[in-house]
């Protein structure tokens, strides 16, 4: 997660997701932003906090097989730059979404729940917690 260009590729893919949703004619702007936020958080939750192990064989005798991707980043070291980036990005998206949904209460509840679902597993005290 700290190899060259992956943060840029991640930001571009979020932007592309947003443009795809924006190009659906019958969605309003608030709906598009909320959908972007929710789909992004769902994908992040699945890829970083649900799937365990690695999609290929590793020579570590299965040590990482029971760890999620997030727990494997930087061999479990907390507060590395990759981890900070992946923690901050959903927050930035959430703030943007709140602004563009004009702080509508319904959108606010949906977005806040979605944000918490990807922020809580990132806290160091939840490392390895099931």
């Amino acid at each position, binding site marked *: 997660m700290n190899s060259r260009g992956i943060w840029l590729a991640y930001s571009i893919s979020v932007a592309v997701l947003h443009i795809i949703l924006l*190009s659906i*004619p019958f969605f309003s702007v608030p709906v598009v932003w909320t959908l972007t936020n929710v789909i992004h958080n769902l994908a992040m939750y699945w890829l970083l906090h649900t799937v365990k192990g690695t999609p290929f064989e590793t020579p570590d005798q299965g040590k990482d097989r029971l760890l999620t991707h997030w727990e494997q980043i930087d061999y479990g070291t907390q507060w590395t730059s990759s981890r900070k980036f992946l923690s901050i990005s959903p927050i930035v998206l959430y703030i943007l979404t709140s602004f563009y949904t004009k702080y509508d209460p319904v959108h606010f509840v949906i977005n806040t729940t979605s944000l918490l679902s990807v922020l809580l597993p990132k806290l160091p005290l939840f490392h390895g917690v099931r």
Partner: protein
Amino acid sequence: YQYLLVTALYMLEPWERTVFNSMLVSIVGMALYTGYVFM
């Protein structure tokens, strides 16, 4: 050929390429339509 290589469609089977290309065409079509309506 470059398009197939850069998007890795080169490695997909023909029907998967069709799925991807039709999705791409529809997204671009929608984006153009929405852009037109918006303008």
